[in-house]
């Protein structure tokens, strides 16, 4: 297994390299630059700025410098926020997104897995239709509808929580629910599907025939295999949860990483975009690795090869 992990880590290096290269050149191909503003400044000033940030050098030289800095783990200064480095901006905002993401993940897993299991036990009855209808609703109603609804109702009408902001522990509740519901809905459907597939297999029938209690059938015989689709989904989903959601952060005014993904691209903040993309990519690679290890453990038919 160690060999497997090590190999996968080695493979991640060329992947990150390709992502960095593609991102770098795609950004430079996009029209407009970091210093274009509605109030146009003199050409001399733009030239001076470009010189300052090394944008006057040939593109390939810029690329080499960027890569060299990346190797040292230096993502460079932000163009938009000149007195901060990209490393600092990520270091400041990632913990917020991480905290929100973990809370949301717990809600999603708890609600999703439980309702998925319940639904799978009596397929095509009320205990299946109700949670699945709710899950379908959860998938269909976007976070930008749920968020303001929760904020207005629990924040303003009932006054239980602040409608937005990130100051007190209680401020985590509404955004975590908003984000969690959305993922819970997916997880619920995936869990139901995975569970049903296993529940219909011969060994489960055998277990039942031998008189195993329903809870034993679920926990001991079915759950491990039934969760496989959910676990596969969780890899990229968790990366998305942890790096923050632009929409949820925007609705609840949360100082997380999510907004940098969107705003830095609009701002043509070259270094910030590259930093955010690489950070996200590395997280996805790492979580996919975790998921693969988990899958082998869950599914005896797979081997580390």
């Amino acid at each position, binding site marked *: 297994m160690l060999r497997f992990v090590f190999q996968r880590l080695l493979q991640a290096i060329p992947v990150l390299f390709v992502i960095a290269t593609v991102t770098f050149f795609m950004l430079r191909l*996009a*029209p*407009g*630059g970091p210093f*274009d*503003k*509605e*109030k*146009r*400044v*003199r*050409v*001399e*000033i*733009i030239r*001076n*700025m470009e010189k*300052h940030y090394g944008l006057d050098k040939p593109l390939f030289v810029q690329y080499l410098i960027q890569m060299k800095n990346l190797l040292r783990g230096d993502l460079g*200064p932000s163009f*938009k*926020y*000149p*007195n*901060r480095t990209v490393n600092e*901006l990520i270091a*400041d*905002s990632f913990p917020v997104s991480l905290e929100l993401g973990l809370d949301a993940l717990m809600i999603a897993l708890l609600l999703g897995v439980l309702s998925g299991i319940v639904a799978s036990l009596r397929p095509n009855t009320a205990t299946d239709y109700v949670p699945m209808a709710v899950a379908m609703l959860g998938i269909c109603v976007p976070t930008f509808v749920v968020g*303001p609804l929760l*904020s*207005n109702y629990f*924040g*303003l*009408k009932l*006054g239980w929580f*602040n*409608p*937005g*902001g*990130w100051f007190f522990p209680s401020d985590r509740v509404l955004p975590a629910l908003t984000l969690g519901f959305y993922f819970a809905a997916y997880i619920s459907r995936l869990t139901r599907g995975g569970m049903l597939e296993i529940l219909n297999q011969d060994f489960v029938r055998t277990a039942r025939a031998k008189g195993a209690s329903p809870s034993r059938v679920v926990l001991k015989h079915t759950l491990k295999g039934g969760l496989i689709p959910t676990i596969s989904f969780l890899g990229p989903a968790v990366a998305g949860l942890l790096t923050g959601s632009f929409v949820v952060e*925007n*609705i*609840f*005014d949360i*100082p*997380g990483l999510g*907004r940098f993904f969107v705003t830095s691209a*609009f*701002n*043509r903040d070259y270094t910030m975009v590259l930093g955010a993309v690489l950070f996200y990519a590395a997280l996805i690679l790492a979580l996919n690795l975790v998921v693969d290890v988990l899958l082998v453990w869950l599914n005896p038919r797979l081997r580390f090869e």
Partner: protein
Amino acid sequence: MGALSLLPSCGKRETRIEAGDREQVLHIGNGTEPQDLDPHTITGDIEHHIVMALIEGLVSEAPDDLHPVPGIAESWDISADRTVYTFHLRQNARWSTGVPVTASDFVDSFERVLLPELASDYSYMLYPMKNAEAFNTGTLKDFKEVGAKALDAHTLQITLHSPTPYFLSLITNPAWYPVHIPTIKKYGGIADRANRWTLPGHFVGNGPFVLKEWKVNAFVRVQKNPDYWDAGAVKLNGIYFYPTENVDAEERAFRAGMLHITKDVPQTKIQVYQKEHPDLITAKPILSTYYYRFNVTHPPLNDKRVRRALAMAIDRDSICKNVARGGQVAAYNLTPPGIAGYTAKAQLPNDLSLAKNLLAEAGFPEGKNFPEVTILFNTHEGHKAIAETIQEMWRKNLGISVRLRNEEWKVFLDTTLKLNYDVARAAWGGDYVDPNTFLDLMVSGGGNNQTGWSNKEYDGLIEDAAKTGDMQKRFELFQQAEAILMDEVPLMPIYFYTRPTLIHHSVRNFFPTVLDNHPWKYVYLVPGED
């Protein structure tokens, strides 16, 4: 919308603004995350709002109408030809490190903002000063020849190359602010934009407040500066600036008692507040114009008659009332109202039959054979709605059909700069209270002209106005320039902006102003009034 009536509903729990009222701490929405707090490199009002709490220039602004009042300079003399200003600095003005603010601090600061390496966007604000432009563009190397001189520690002399009647108003701009050069040098190069002197703990200012905390995307907190020369007059103990980008979230925070003042109001709620809570909302005009550029190098827009016809064939009142819906004012010229002594006389006629005749004269009777023309706007729901309305008005009134195209912001900026458009959405906000900040836009080859339009007579008028010390005569020249502009219509004014803001009852001395600047030292809070 019924929820609005629940306004200050919280029963027992003390809200953030109630605590703020008690402690004289203001909580204010500030739109978005400040890029930096260096007065010499900032470009937006977001940053300006915070910096004006931290640093004070030679003169300050009065809280209500922004007229210049003594700041670090307690008085000044103006030479007879109005080109030499001698400022007498206060003996008791200090930096937050305790050292006095001197005339040479100002001279060194002017030198820094004009350094070509710093590439300050607003360095042109100093161009009325003798040789400032030459130094800034690198043709002059010796700063001693620039018109700023410290006569002694507390006397500063500024020489202008021509009388600039709005000079005192101009120097309230942050580009004219002094900075503490030793502090900047301590944290890096003097022209280094990545210099970290503007972070809390590093920042040295001379204003009524000092920088205490800056949490990215969360808030900036400033606290009363006990060493400020006029500290006795400062009533607030602190201000929190929140970078809330989502206007709906900001409005909810206001209703929940988390903000005293908002930066903006959601478009859909402006009329609701005006009806149900007129005491909480203001929507006063600011010096900003929404307009469309005509690319005069593209036929048929190279024909003045076509441009005039297009500009006359829209119903601006209807756009303001039914589409923009924020109390905007229909614009029939470029320079907004609100500049004392100047109200543009030239007004685009609101005459549909004239528009139709002009179009026929230009060879397109009833819009027949009108070539394909596209309105370009940056991707935004509000701009789209206005473009669609204008498309429909032109179709109905002139019988021409135009197409719409939207582009992402930076792409849009690139396209308009390269004149790859026919008609493009634009907006301009004044930098100081004078018509020049608008009319200067359209001089030949001006970086923000971006229409391809050029007119010798117009350029001459703007140039003459810059040299004229007599305010009356200057305004007359501007009137003539504006008349040319509204005859030639290289641009089509649509409306003048308003700044909708929600303000709680406890806030005092916070006035809507035409530049949306609010000198913080006068603001205070009255507990128990929310």
